[in-house]
């Protein structure tokens, strides 16, 4: 029973940790670095597989 509790605790810890990492990365990339594309009216609409990579995000 104790082992099960420890496993559960570890699982949720890592889950929360990776979610937090993802949020942090998104915050830095989008809010801080503003690393996203704003399409203009004369640009074609992108398809799902198109993607824009800012050099600083690599």
């Amino acid at each position, binding site marked *: 029973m104790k082992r*099960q509790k420890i*496993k*559960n605790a570890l*699982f949720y810890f890592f*889950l929360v940790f*990776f*979610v937090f*990492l*993802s*949020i942090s*990365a*998104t*915050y*830095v*990339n*989008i*809010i801080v670095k*503003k690393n*996203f*594309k*704003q*399409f*203009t*009216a004369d*640009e074609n*609409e*992108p398809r*799902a*597989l*198109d*993607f*824009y*990579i800012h050099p600083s*995000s690599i």
Partner: protein
Amino acid sequence: MIDNPCEWGSTALLIFSDNVGKLIYYTHVLPLVISLFLGFQILISNPKELANRVLFVTTVFFAIWVYFNLILWASPTPEVVVFFWSLIVPVELLMYLSAVYLVYLFSHGQVDMPIWLKTIFSLLLVPILLFAHTSLNVIGLSPDCDTGAFEGIVIKYMYFVEVLLLLAVAFFTIQGYRRLNKKTEKRQLLYIGLSTFIFLVFFTVGNFTLFFELGPFYEQYKLFGMPLFAGLVSYSIIKYRAFHTKTLITEVLISTLWILMFSMLLFRDMSYARPIIFITVIVFGFIGIMLSRVLRRELEQKAEIERLALGLERANARLQELDKQKSEFVSIASHQLRSPLTAIRGYAAMLRDGSYGSLPDKTNEPLDRIHESAKLMASSIEDFLSVSRIESGNMKYELADFNLREQAEHIVDDLRAEALKVGLVLSYKSDMSSQGFVHADIGKTQQILHNLINNSLKYTQKGTVTVFVHEDIQMKKLYVEIIDTGIGMSKETIDTLFAKFTRAKNANSVNIKGTGLGLFVAREMARAMAGEITAHSAGDGQGSHFILTLPLVR
């Protein structure tokens, strides 16, 4: 970077903006309030239950999703839109995963999901968490303010995973329904599984309106899955105590009304009515809480009374069973003892009478004592048997009309010689205008009279025992009074005289023999024949007075 491409005004709390239609707020805020209310209510009612915590987490993820979606509608700032659009993707998938977890718990009798299965489901999040911050998730902002952003491959992946999770909910529901044994658990699963499925179907279908580019407005109706979910969950709580919590339909009605009233504060452009609505919300909330408490207390008391009543019923049934077993035992034991006693008395009498040849004179006394002791023992056993029959309701009475006046006189004649042996005078007198017929069992009546007269003879050392028969024509009663000049009884003794195994305190001074059952049996038999026996005495040493009453026929 264009700071405000749509040229919208600023927002309050990130979500309130004049550029957002009222319908958007209506479809978002109402489900948000309902979901948080439901989640908190269930969590507070029983926080120890895992299912309650998982439901709460699901409702929180839903609430976060709604809030983020409102930001996307209202915010004019590009980076804010892209940021929350990126994050809404993992939040949405987390909501789906916790909903699947909830259904799993109900389908497996509240047993937790194993770590390996949790890990497999969590691995579905990996592409989303890895690429949330990249353009694989949100490609970029559209110049069309209504479209908002272009969704990348990661979001398309999320839609695909959501369909799989929807199928997982259906799978767990069906599998659990077939596997669970208890009817209540099956019903709980049915409601939780169905409500979760409907909730997620609304969401998934709404997402596919985006996928097929039907426009953003149809997507908003996906949020109405939440009120349906809340309704079905509430019903399962009321009917089947799902989430191991109890709620009253009153509480659900009050909560629903309160939410609707509260939502009026947010949506309606009635600034003049806002203070009134606000006060109504507060007062209604307060009264609702009080009403709910009172009802709950009453229900708890009723449940307690029902529980006690059930306990009493069971205890009573057990006692009756034990009493029956005791009576049966006494009956069986008494029958087993009677046969050997009959043999002892018979052979003792035959030896005394010389049937086996003449015996020395000195054997007379021992044989007499054997005979008397066996006779006494037989009498005691007869008393035990009578008690057993009376208590088990097996005592048979053959009621018929007979002349009690004559019977009493015969019994006195029979016992007169025995009275003289102990130096007592047994006399009979009557004062009757009727014939003296009663409707009773003649054998039992003779037994009662023998018992009463023998008692008087036993407890009278000197003097007289008088049997007096008289009637009350108007009351239609015949009385047989046995009056003696014996040891008498105190008031305390009279009160307990007719109880089982009770003898007068002064009885042992004159007569050590007796089971204390004779008067109990006599009175029970008299009562069974619509009669009564009463005892009277002026006190110790003042004699006793027993009255047998039976219904007079003619």
